[in-house]
């Protein structure tokens, strides 16, 4: 009796609470609507302010730059239907298509780009990725407040459909750069009116891309419909997009396996082997490399021989076969495969610079440096970002170095922001990072180690290296440019301010019926060409 009454009370309470929140479950099982997990809640959907993968993916659905990166890796026309490059490769003229429209029907014109790029560079907007535009003439100076006249920035509208861009120096990858969201146009009059939150409201979120934002329920989901004003709308085959927001990769995998989403590209490392064995894991290239910075200013690591010994003693083959288990390529250089200059793969041409698993050579080097069998070698302090999947690899290396060289390693995981601060202050011997390309060029990886590079935690400084990269920037001829970069990379790996480990891959699962979705090597996903079968 008593129990039953209480049971009724509990269910009444439950019904009450449930009634309050209502039955908001809408599976969005409409025909042709692709469901995808974006990850965390987007911080902003303003192309000028976005930096993270979820933001960039959502923006790529709603906007389009002068060019677009196609699934085969080629750069295809976007708003620009054609372009011309001056002989000194410092001036680009883009011819915009007349039928490019905003999602409210107004035309997209050259002046929109001028407005948008100037906006990105305004110091007051404080766009974190403004540096993506620094290759444009006077852009860096304007962004840092050295000059205040926006007219001086090297971008101008020659007429409604012709855009001229002057660069600081020849930039071989500029056409892929303008496909990046920071370069996307925004609707000037509207943004000027509601700067600060125009992207929050689907009514004011006017884009020029394949989809339009229909609905954004905070921290739950975003839905998109095809944009019928898009110039290339015939190529858009999806009936819409629905992004859910799940941060835990294990949960994302569960949603995929339960059939709730069509694509899962953030997978838990512990499940990779099983998924691979089940034959459903798909892999794609990722312009990324995992390596350890070496603090070249501290203790025995100031000695190049010691740094080299550490790098040589690692069995990278075992590391990718047994620890990461994703079938990654081992890294015996810095720049990953998949970066082409003039149609030639930079990595394939350059080849490896160090041997893998060369224990004997490593021991010899260490002995030469005064630490035979690691005697007298101090405990090394390895900094890793907490929870980033670096821990297991670090433990494997810990053993490899101990057995091969007699060197003990202390692994120090740190919460991300603390990690970054400690790394920047040089408070470490070794620091683990994964580095992803910002743009498709060897420079994106090599410029990290410039003497003044903000992310050069190794504190390694080399004028010759700086000179080579500067010369490569000015070089127009692809073969010579590759040659300069190869020389720089060889120099870098000869001095070893870093220990390359492996080139990560993108692992993902996708539903059988999903086709032509493009997982960009820069991290975002492009759904323009995707379809869900028939």
């Amino acid at each position, binding site marked *: 009796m008593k129990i039953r009454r209480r049971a009724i009370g509990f269910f009444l309470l439950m019904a009450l609470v449930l009634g309050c929140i209502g039955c908001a479950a809408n599976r969005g099982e409409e025909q042709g609507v692709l469901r995808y997990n974006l990850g965390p809640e987007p911080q902003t959907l303003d192309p000028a302010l976005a930096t993270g993968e979820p933001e960039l993916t959502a923006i790529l659905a709603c906007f389009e730059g002068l060019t677009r990166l196609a699934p085969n890796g080629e750069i295809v026309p976007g708003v620009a239907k054609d372009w011309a490059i001056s002989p000194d490769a410092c001036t680009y003229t883009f011819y915009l298509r007349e039928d490019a429209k905003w999602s409210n029907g107004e035309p997209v014109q050259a002046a929109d780009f001028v407005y948008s790029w100037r906006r990105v560079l305004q110091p007051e907007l404080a766009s974190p990725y403004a540096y993506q535009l620094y290759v444009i003439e006077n852009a860096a100076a304007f962004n840092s407040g050295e000059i205040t006249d926006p007219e001086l920035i090297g971008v101008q509208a020659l007429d409604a459909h012709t855009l001229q861009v002057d660069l600081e120096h020849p930039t071989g990858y500029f056409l892929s750069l303008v496909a990046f969201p920071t370069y996307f146009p925004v609707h000037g009059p509207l943004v000027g009116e509601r700067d600060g939150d125009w992207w929050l409201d689907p009514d004011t979120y006017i884009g020029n891309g394949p989809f339009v934002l229909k609905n954004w329920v905070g921290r739950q989901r975003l839905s998109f419909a095809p944009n019928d004003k898009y110039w290339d709308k015939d190529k858009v085959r999806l009936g819409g997009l629905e992004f859910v927001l799940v941060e835990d990769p294990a949960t994302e995998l569960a949603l995929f396996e339960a059939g709730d989403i069509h694509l899962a590209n953030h997978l838990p490392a512990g499940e990779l082997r099983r998924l691979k064995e089940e034959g459903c894991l798909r892999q794609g290239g990722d312009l990324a490399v995992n390596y350890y910075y070496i603090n070249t200013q501290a203790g025995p690591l100031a000695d190049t021989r010691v740094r080299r010994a550490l790098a040589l003693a690692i069995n990278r083959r075992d590391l990718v076969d047994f620890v990461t288990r994703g079938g990654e390529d081992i890294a015996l250089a810095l720049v990953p495969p998949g970066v082409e200059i003039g149609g030639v793969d930079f990595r394939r041409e350059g080849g490896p610079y160090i041997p893998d698993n060369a224990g004997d050579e490593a021991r010899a080097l260490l002995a030469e440096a005064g630490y035979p069998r690691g005697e007298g070698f101090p405990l090394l302090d390895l900094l890793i970002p907490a929870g980033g999947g670096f821990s297991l690899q670090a433990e494997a290396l810990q053993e490899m170095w101990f057995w091969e060289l007699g060197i003990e390693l202390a692994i120090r*995981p740190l919460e991300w922001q603390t990690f970054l601060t400690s790394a920047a202050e040089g408070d470490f011997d070794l620091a683990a990072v994964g580095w992803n390309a910002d743009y498709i060029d060897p420079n994106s990886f090599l410029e990290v180690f410039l003497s003044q590079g903000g992310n050069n935690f190794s504190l390694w400084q080399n004028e010759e290296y700086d000179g080579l990269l500067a010369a490569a920037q000015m070089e127009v001829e692809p073969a010579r440019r590759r040659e300069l970069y190869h020389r720089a990379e060889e120099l870098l790996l000869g001095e070893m301010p870093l220990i390359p480990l492996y080139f990560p891959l993108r692992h993902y699962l996708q539903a059988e019926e999903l086709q032509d979705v493009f997982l960009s090597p820069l991290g975002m996903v492009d759904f323009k060409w995707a379809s869900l079968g028939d």
Partner: protein
Amino acid sequence: MKGRSVHFGGGGPKAARTYLFLGLFLIGLVTLLSLLWPFLSPYSPREQALDQGNLPPSLAHYWGTDALGRDLFTRVLYGARLSLGIALGVVLINLALGLPYGAVAGWYGGRVDMYMMGLVDILHGVPSLLYIIFFLVVLGPGLKGIFLTLGLAYWLDLARQVRNQVLSFREAEFVLAARALGLGPVSILWREMLPNMVDPLLVTLVFHIPQAVFLEAFLSYLGLGVTAPRASLGTLLAEGVANMRSAPRELIFPALLVFVIMLGFNFLGEGLRGGGPKAP
């Protein structure tokens, strides 16, 4: 209120002794195993064999191996040591801080109580993750940070509980009687009140142990706790969850040991309470 003392336990001092014995036996067994693992297993907890990762249990590896080919049996026993230390630590912190603090607040009541409980609320209110990261920056990894965090977080509930009970006993007849006999506050608290609140107190104490053991796993994840290759039951559980579907045993074995330890502490708690109701 007829306690059918058929199975184990029941009321009375005899049952208490059984509980106490069971508890001491289980805790002692785990402690012994965690200290004696070098004699039970030919492996060291850090020794890897990368090509023998995630093996199922066999005669060579009683509980199989983990992702790096380390012997799971050895690692779990080794990990139990730190977790037992944490368990001991949290009990001591609770008793040393929570008990006297709550007693003082409850005894004096009024303004004293308000200020003292205010401090408890403040310590509760400041987000723990903030001071955890603070310790992480100031102290670096290691046990200091763990025990400081436990010391900040794990006596608050007990203090409030003791304070509530003391407040409620303050005017009780047996206390008034003791006071009439001229007993001082300390002896009244110790001899009269404590026996009356020991039951729920022990429950709280026992429940704090797993929480602290799991908190350590979180701290280690953030970088404040044990550093690899050392492990604790908490970190092993966390690793086990990550591999739950490919290699469930890597979750089951550490979980089993945690269960045995908790069962031990539960028995211990029951035993200390006297195994049943008693007259105030």
